């Protein structure tokens, strides 16, 4: 799940608008059987993909963008900015996948 999630979320984050990540997480959650470690793995991979891709893009600006944005968010170092981005990706994927999972469970019950 982790590597599948990493590949999928990297592709989604790189190619599609920002709201595509929660949508993807929701759909995966909706489709997969309810297992907590799925949520954990996919969210972890989404957070890592988002932080890593941001880091790559930042390199093109010689690290100036992360320096300025860290200042904007009152973070003491640019490194912490990537930690924040990781958390954003992680929480977004986790919340929407969880929402998909619980709704899917509800739908299944309703169908029965």
């Amino acid at each position, binding site marked *: 799940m982790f590597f599948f999630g990493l590949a999928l979320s990297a592709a989604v984050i*790189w190619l599609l608008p920002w709201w595509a990540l929660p949508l993807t997480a929701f759909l995966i959650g909706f489709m997969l059987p309810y297992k907590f470690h799925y949520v954990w793995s996919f969210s972890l991979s989404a957070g890592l993909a988002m932080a890593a891709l941001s880091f790559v893009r*930042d390199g093109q*600006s010689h690290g100036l963008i992360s320096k300025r944005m860290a200042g*904007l968010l009152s973070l003491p170092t640019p490194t912490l900015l990537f930690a924040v981005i990781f958390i954003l990706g992680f929480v977004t994927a986790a*919340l929407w996948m969880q929402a998909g999972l619980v*709704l899917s469970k509800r739908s299944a019950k309703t169908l029965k």
Partner: protein
Amino acid sequence: MRKWFWLILAIGWLLFLKLGAGPLPGLGPLFEVSTGIWDHHPSTLESRTLSGLKDKVTVTIDQSGVPHIFARNESDLYLAQGFVMAQARLFQMDISTRVTAGMLSELVGERGLAFDEFFVKFGMRGSVDEMWRAIGKKPRTRAMLEAFVTGVNLYVDQLQEPPPEYKILNVKPQRFSPERFVHMGKALTFNLAGRTFDLELSQIAGKFGVEHVLDLFPQYLPAKFEDFVDPRPHGKAPLAEPTRAFQTSFKEFPSFPWANPGQGSNNWAVAPAKSASGTSLFANDTHLGLTLPNIWFETQLYTPDFNAYGVSLAALPGLVNGFNKDIAWGPTNGTTDVLDFYEIEFEDETSARYLVNQQWYTGREEKQIVKIKGGNEKEIVVMNTHLGVLLHRQGKLGLVADWAGHRPGNELLALRGLLNAANVDECLLSFSDWRVPIQNFLCVDKTNIAWTHAGFVPKRPAGQGRFVMDGRTARVPLIEELPESDRPQARNPAQGFLRSANEKILPPSAGIYLGWDYEPPNRGQRIQEALQAKDKWTPEDMIALQNDVRNVEAMRILPHLLRLVKQDELTSGQREALELLRAWDYRVLATRIEATLYAVWTDKFKEKIFGDDVLEEGKRKLMPRDARLAWLLARLEANPNDPDAKWVDDRATDAKETLTGQATRALQATWNLLIERLGPDPKLWTWRNWQQPRFLHAGRLPGFGSDVLTVDGSNDTVSAVAKAHGPTYRVVVETGEWPKAWMQVPGGNNGDPFATDFERFVTDWSQGRMRQVEFYRDMEEAKKAAVRIVEFTPSAEVK
């Protein structure tokens, strides 16, 4: 229920990512990898067609990033200048032209509302409308501005990717109206000519009397403590201020922005007789807010009619400060008082009718709308009376402000005249169109130097405008202009130089009252002393003087304090600090602690001496100047029973305080404050750590300015570096067959905060280094030295 909980939580999180919260922008779109903040492409000038051009324009970029614009006519020049400037500085241009227009909230939300409300209420919109109507009658100025705005809007129209600040604020750049650029001029005018302490002085006079105010805030001190721009001898009797004044009935005043300490400038000119090259030398440095991008934009402007180099405000056509092949010019703020307040009385608490000289007048009310980001609006009622704009009401009383800055001038035309002025006479003549802000302009040509106090200089009886005045008996016109024959100006003085540093203009012997409040004499005195001391000046000497960091005021005050303090009441650390101060050479060095000790000790001492004799206005207290303190110390040392002894005692205590006791307690308080702020190790109390000078972002975005800089100097030194103010531009010009110039514009021209050269020259600036500018004789010469050449061609339909 649990299921809905997760869905609601997820939707809430999504909304937070989209919309942000409080000052936090929407982080979802902002950190989107493909199109968010990471997707940044540095903007570069490209050759292209520009509709509106009449002919081809060539722009060469030199290795310092300075554009040299070569056009065949003026209209094309300003259009190209607008395009080039917008390409480099669009966001700065946008935000700086919004300040006085009451449009900040539209861009930055609620945090801009206080500014918007103040400037709308102060009548800036009406003032700009009036100025724009006046410009309409002056075809040359209007054409200049319209061509510039066309260039800016052409850039906005073709913009693919907005500057990053727009992404952070989640707004799109809009086209500009010409009035927005008139607002830019008004913003700078208010910054320089909106200085006033009338309200505070009225409050102090209300509690303690007018004589108390005149004693603490005198029009003139003895000569040793004063400095004047005017070098001419005068022989008239001094004008004494009246010791009685109108007593306002206001219990409270609205808060009015204070001038930033350290805001000012230096300029000086050396005549050929005192110059090593035998031609005139000129130096200028403007002390404004230290921002990135810099407030100035450096450029060379060339048409068949003129060839000039210098800096313009990053939202105005032409040049403000600069030089051409024949002359050099540059200002310091004149500081002369042009803002007065009147108390008027309305018919009742809500009426617009007010009584002046037994006659009823009706104020003209207008409803103005301030738009706030997100769709909200705020209505503000602006009332204009024939005495000024209403700022505040209290019962039947109204406080109106009469500001000369509201009167339309033609400053752009004055600046245009400088571009092709051939000598000092033509330079001075250009300023006949200048009204506000009053400036001390210096002009030099190869053989002459001249100074003029340019603008609408009020003719005042002594003391007028120091306090809030009685509008019930006011006569219109409220203030008249000083006759041209009395205008402060000088030309080729015998001393061989001219200089100004925002200090008082005229000595008492001139017999003319211009106001009481100017910058302290320190910088001017130091420049005077240096210019007198040397016979033959070189550009290198001029640069060295611009970087001078000797504190003249400290030389007057500190020896007294050192003699007064009681050693036996001090700790060993405090005594060691005194030893450091005894050995101090009065240079304000960033890595040393002497300047910190002196500055804090003086402030604490002044607070102990004068703190109970002035009123607190909110968190700000108007204190007597350091020069007044120096005079008090000199008087009391010569005679302990001098009348100035009355200031030493603290009214709040029963005990009788002494000067030595106050000096000792002030040093102890200094020690405690420094421990509290910078820690117990005195080695950390360096001037850099205390003052923490840095460049802030023009839009005040945290993290978008510079780091704290290690830079020598303070408000009181020629190199006037304060916390967030300082020399935003330095230039030295050597006139001659072809002028040579050395310049420093910290931040450079590039306004892109993600570009590697956004902080260009900041390090050079902090170390006092200048670079020789490339001033080309013609386009061919510029092309040979260019790192980039851009051609703007007219579009087919116009051609």
